[in-house]
């Protein structure tokens, strides 16, 4: 028989997650619109592809930054997090709700736009060889968002949060250049008509997924050892 307290706490965590999604609904819609327009543009012609790709990457990164800044860091700044902590909920449950609520808020548009990006490559004349790089890039967006969210949740300093956001954004450039040089991923493979799902691809993907897993579990673990929450 489940503990009624656990049931109520679970319900409370779900409500807090739903609240976060509700409060960020306009940002979600904006990200979706921005991402879809970028994809449409990318599917038109070569110039459209260039502009659309940059626009798509900007949309994804900006969406992650906005969520980390306004849904987590700003909440700490304006003390609305403190208000939530005054609710009948353990601080660790609040962190759980915040982390998963924000991640879900990012994840829904991300998954739709990622599916759109993959579909775009699959159904347009764009070379299918782009697929592995695109997938890795898309997962990298999720990875950088997870890191930004984790840092914003754990540190109590706006400066450190901003630093983390800048670092993760800058890392995108290094990532793109980096993977382009990895044998089995870069080179002219992205110009081929069939995708190459090499061992390098799966190694990078595994690394990204591991980073996401660490980023999403670290705040939960670290908060368990925290004594003070205000």
């Amino acid at each position, binding site marked *: *028989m489940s503990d009624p307290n656990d049931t109520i706490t679970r319900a409370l965590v779900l409500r807090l997650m739903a609240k976060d999604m509700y409060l960020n609904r306009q940002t979600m819609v904006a990200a979706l619109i921005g991402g879809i327009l970028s994809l449409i543009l990318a599917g038109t012609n070569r110039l459209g592809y260039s502009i659309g790709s940059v626009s798509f990457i900007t949309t994804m990164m900006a969406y992650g930054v906005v969520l980390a800044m306004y849904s987590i860091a700003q909440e700490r700044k304006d003390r609305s997090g403190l208000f939530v902590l005054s609710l009948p*909920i*353990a601080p660790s449950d609040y962190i759980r709700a915040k982390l998963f609520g924000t991640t879900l808020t990012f994840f829904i548009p991300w998954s739709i736009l990622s599916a759109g990006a993959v579909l775009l490559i699959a159904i347009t004349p764009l070379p299918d060889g782009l697929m592995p790089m695109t997938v890795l890039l898309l997962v990298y967006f999720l990875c950088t968002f997870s890191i930004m969210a984790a840092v914003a949740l754990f540190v109590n300093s706006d400066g450190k949060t901003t630093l983390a956001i800048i670092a993760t954004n800058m890392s995108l450039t290094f990532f793109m250049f980096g993977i382009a040089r990895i044998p089995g991923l870069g080179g002219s493979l992205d110009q081929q008509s069939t995708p190459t799902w090499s061992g390098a691809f799966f190694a990078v993907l595994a690394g990204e997924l591991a980073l996401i897993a660490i980023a999403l579990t670290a705040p939960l673990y670290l908060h368990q050892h925290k004594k003070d929450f205000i």
Partner: protein
Amino acid sequence: MNTENRVHALDAVRAFALLLGLAFHAALSFIPGMPVGVWAIADNSPSPALANAAFVAHLFRMTLFFFIAGYFARLLFHRRGIGGFWSNRALRILVPLIVGWVILFPSISAVWIWGIAKTFGPQALANPPPRPPAPFGAFPLTHLWFLYYLLLLYVALLAVRSIVVAADRNGHVRAAVDKVVRGSLNGYWAALFLGVPVALCLYDLKWWSFFQGIPTPDSNLIPQLASFVGYGIAVMLGWLVHRQPDLLGSIQKRWIGHLVLAAAATAACFWAMRGHPLLSLVPQGTTRITFALAFGVASWSWALAITGVAVQFFAQESRVRRYVADSSYWLYLAHLPIVAAFQVWMAKWPLHWSVKYPLVLLFSLAILLASYHLLVRPTFIGKVLNGRKYPLRAPRKTPEGAIALCADSTKMPVAELRGVTKRFGKVVALDNVDLQVNRGELLAVLGPNGAGKTTAIGLWLGLLAPDQGTVALMGGPPSEIERRRRVGVMMQEVELGRELRVRELLELMGSYYPNSLTPEQAMELTRTTALASRTYSKLSGGQKRQVQFALALCGRPEVLFLDEPTVGLDVQSREAMWAAIRDLIARGCSIVLTTHYLEEAEALADRVVVLARSRVIAAGSVDEMRSIVARRQIVCETTVDAEVVRGWPGVVDSQRDGHRLRVTAFDAEAVVRRLLDADHQLKNLEVRQAGLAEAFTELTKEAA
């Protein structure tokens, strides 16, 4: 799983057993071949399917009821002792038995007569068939026989208990019995183990019909062996299960298995019955052995399966289930003449049983529930049957009333800091602080910025951990969610969902608590109804504080922490908040109020604590605070030397300020007399009753 949960689950089981009895009796007129006289009427649309369903229900319903009764009996016995047990049982069982019988027997008889007249014509009443001589002890107990047997079984049970307690001084026998009970319930043996003695008693019955099951002992005051043993085992097992409450968990875990066993044993009953009418006598031989065994096992398997289901799915409190559970006793007591009357009324209607049976149930339940709600629940009858009276109209969840319900009249501390020290790095926020908030009082915590007021609240909410000392909220650790649910908080300078309207915020807040106030109630209490549809971000600072106050009340708090609640409020709003705070206090809510507005503490507080430099520097009532300073403030123009005055008894300090001498003294009157004696030219003497503001200033200055 806690005991309270089990009680909710077993309350549900007891209600189920009683209501199943109602459904069972409603089916009796539809059983093919039911003799009129044995039942009030036989319907013109009999149903074998309904008869079989009634048979299955009858297999276990009373066994289940007596099992739960045994569990609750031991619970009651250990809560109230033997005297309390019997006075409770006298009121809840004996009184309904006697009073109920006096009212119900004539009613039931009248319905039976109506049924017989409707079936055989009025002449049947004029020439009744000869009756066989009544056996010794014959008495028409009607369906109230279960109350009579409950009392008999309680007597037997407590007698056995007394003997066991006297004889088994070292507890070996009880331990062995517990072991057997545990062993049988930690598997599927219990149904077999318990079913066999039931089967033996049934097997030996002279007149035993398939449908009858354990014979209903409703016509004789002398205990009938099969019924007494069958239901006695059930009461005894309930009692023994309560000795080891974790056994309910074992039953819960095995509910599916018990259900499968129940279905199999029931199938065996039907297999043994094949070719025999349901109401016929059970033939001797293999059929009787098979049926008796299958019946005993099925009876207990169903009882355990249903108990397991209840513990699994209905352990939490539910207002609806609670209402049904409360009403079920009355419904069962009063149902028989009403159900039978509807059966008689509809017996000749040219409708299929599938229409009439639900109608009988529907009409009967409508009358019974209405009578319960209007005539029983709010009256002394409800007090007898349910143990308490409920107001006819559930009190509207006004914030005042609702919060008053939360309040406990005991004066125990609801929040305590004992010897608490809290450091942030090298900064000591609280240094060996003792603070206590009693139930129903408003404690004002005063102090300059950085004195540790908000830290104290953070500790009480479990958001900070003390470096030293103990923090208690309602007698336990503040981090426990159960305690946090009973607390409301209004923190300083918090921001809320900016895009949400006030009503949405209150709805959202209410959704975080069980049994919360509605937005309307919270707004009514805090006089914020006019802000309901305003967007939070567009409110003024003062209005936001009012909304935050309403939010703090949403969970019907027993303890409310208000951290500088009236900052930014205009005079009118502040007065409104004060009025609301006074309402809360009057209804037993305990409040911790930190404030810089000393008149606020003066207007609201029962006690005042002054924090300065991380320590409590003064604590007491507002008057005591005033008196601390009132004794000290003597100002006058005199030539008496300040150094001389400083040496007088009772003088704490003496300073010269130009022509004026400012004396700090414990006993103002004595010092004034001595000053006047020393200087006849003394003038402009002031001895003032200090306000709390001065007390605060003086105290914090001293601490600094």
